[in-house]
């Protein structure tokens, strides 16, 4: 994208011809510094709160202890990591094809009015608060699953609600990247007599690949970080699930459930899981950056 280089229009000596310009720039720099430093503050404070327990029991305790029982000085996070990982994987595996198909539908199958209506609907889905998804899951979905296989609050319920929540993310990103596919490609494909599915599968999807990757990374981050909805429908039993109908507890739900009464090392252990979440998000952000750089 072409961006005007504003600064070059104003050589430095003219820049501060006006005293107020000088003041303005430094004021703005100060405000930007605050905005830029928030993420460092978050990292710093999570570290500060997490350090006591890390120093006392070490990192390995969080993966090797017998169970999650902070009162008894057991800090095994593995069941919660499974909980987060499985709900995330299930939701991403479901939402990715659904979202890509939705975006393709908007671009190549639906007539204009229907496409824009559907886009608006997806945007509305994106705006529904997670607590409302959770509430709906709790009063509608969980009883349904309960009839199928008790107890109802389960990994399956979590995956279902999470899929709905991350679907808009992948759909909107995929939609934007399909919009960037050069029309010449499509004309070329038509001229060669390719079928419509052939055009999509061999021309459209490969040329939108990097955008789709970015979408998957974004939805993964959203799925890992989601708290309220999974907290309300997953049952929150600390266990590694054997089936899709077993209740699970995610890392985020664990924090939300126990922060209210956690003290000392227990509280500190919850900050360790927050740090773990933040770490994963930073890795995902770097991955997104790399995909972006690869593309350009």
């Amino acid at each position, binding site marked *: 994208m072409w961006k*005007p280089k*504003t600064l070059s229009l104003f050589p430095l000596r003219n820049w501060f011809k006006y005293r107020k310009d000088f003041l303005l720039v430094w004021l703005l720099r100060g405000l930007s510094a605050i905005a830029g430093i928030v993420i460092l503050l978050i990292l710093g404070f999570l570290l500060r709160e997490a350090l006591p327990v890390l120093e006392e029991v070490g990192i390995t305790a969080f993966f090797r202890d017998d169970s999650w029982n902070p009162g008894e000085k057991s800090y095994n996070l593995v069941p919660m990591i499974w909980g987060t990982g499985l709900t995330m994987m299930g939701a991403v595996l479901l939402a990715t094809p659904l979202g890509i198909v939705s975006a393709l539908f908007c*671009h190549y199958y639906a007539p204009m009015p229907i496409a824009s209506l559907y886009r608006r609907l997806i945007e509305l889905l994106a705006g*529904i608060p997670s607590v*409302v998804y959770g509430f709906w899951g709790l009063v509608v979905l969980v009883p349904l699953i309960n009839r199928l296989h008790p107890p109802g609050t389960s990994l399956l319920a979590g995956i279902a609600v999470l899929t709905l929540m991350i679907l808009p993310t992948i759909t909107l990103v995929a939609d934007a990247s399909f919009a960037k596919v050069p029309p010449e490609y499509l004309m070329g*494909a038509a001229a060669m007599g390719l079928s419509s599915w052939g055009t999509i599968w061999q021309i459209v999807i490969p040329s939108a690949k990097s955008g789709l990757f970015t979408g998957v990374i974004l939805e993964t981050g959203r799925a890992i970080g989601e708290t309220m909805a999974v907290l309300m429908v997953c049952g929150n039993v600390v266990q590694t699930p054997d089936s899709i109908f077993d209740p699970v507890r995610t890392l985020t739900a664990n924090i939300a459930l126990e922060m209210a009464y956690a003290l000392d090392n227990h509280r500190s252990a919850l900050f360790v899981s927050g740090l773990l979440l933040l770490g994963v998000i930073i890795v995902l952000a770097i991955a997104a950056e790399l995909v972006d750089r690869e593309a350009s």
Partner: protein
Amino acid sequence: MNLSGLKMIRQNQYGLDKVISLFFWLVPLIVTSLFIWILGDIIRGGIGQLNWAFLTTAPLDTGRQGGIAPILVSTLLILGVCLAVSLPIGIGTAILLAEFTPNHNWFGRLVRRSLDVLAGVPSIVFGLFGNAFFAKTLGLGFSILSGGLTLACMVLPILIRATETGLSAVPQEYRLSSASLGISRTSTLWHLLLPAATPGLLVGLVLGIGRAIAETAALIFTSGYVDRMPTSLLDSGRSLSIHIFDLSMNVTGGDANAYGSALVLILILLLINAIASYLSGKYSKTLKV
């Protein structure tokens, strides 16, 4: 382009293609019906609760009875604190990034990069941070102030991105002619650029409000659970989203009022969404000129 792609593809439909395009209609149909299911359920469950008394009375019996007046007030106060802090920082940062920073400036790149990461941070992590920093270290406790400040950190990336987009849509001629007239950059910004970028600013504002009102996880350990009418910003106050969560998870028999509160929340968000799309519609029209 979109239309031409559509035409291109439709001209040659072979046998298998018909089946596949059927599938392409099926998925949106399912998604749409799920959306209607969710929304319909909330409306059906909440419409009976929704009346003037529900909006103007205090909750009784831990929320099973009564209304949501103090909760609405707390929500508004939290939102007010959030905006009072995030708007100046957000708009200032956006102006610096869009107007006063060349593309390869290290400072600008650093700020952008850190905002990208900030945008992806899970809300519960914001909650942990708010609890450790605002509530504990700064000693604000569980209060509307803590909650609002935590939300301010959260909406910053959204505000900044929208404002920056709005500013970069202002034609370069504005800056050039103003510079050639020898007008200071401050005056250019104040009298030309900001007025021209107002739609972008408003879209950012509306999106930020939407995100802040929908938020729950970041508020549980910062603004707290107390459902009384707040008397100062240092009081704990329960937001609407936390009220829904509490009623449905911790209060047996609270579902009816949870439905009512969910409907109120959805209606507020739909209104905000409508304003945003109206503004961005206006916005894209000015862009095309």
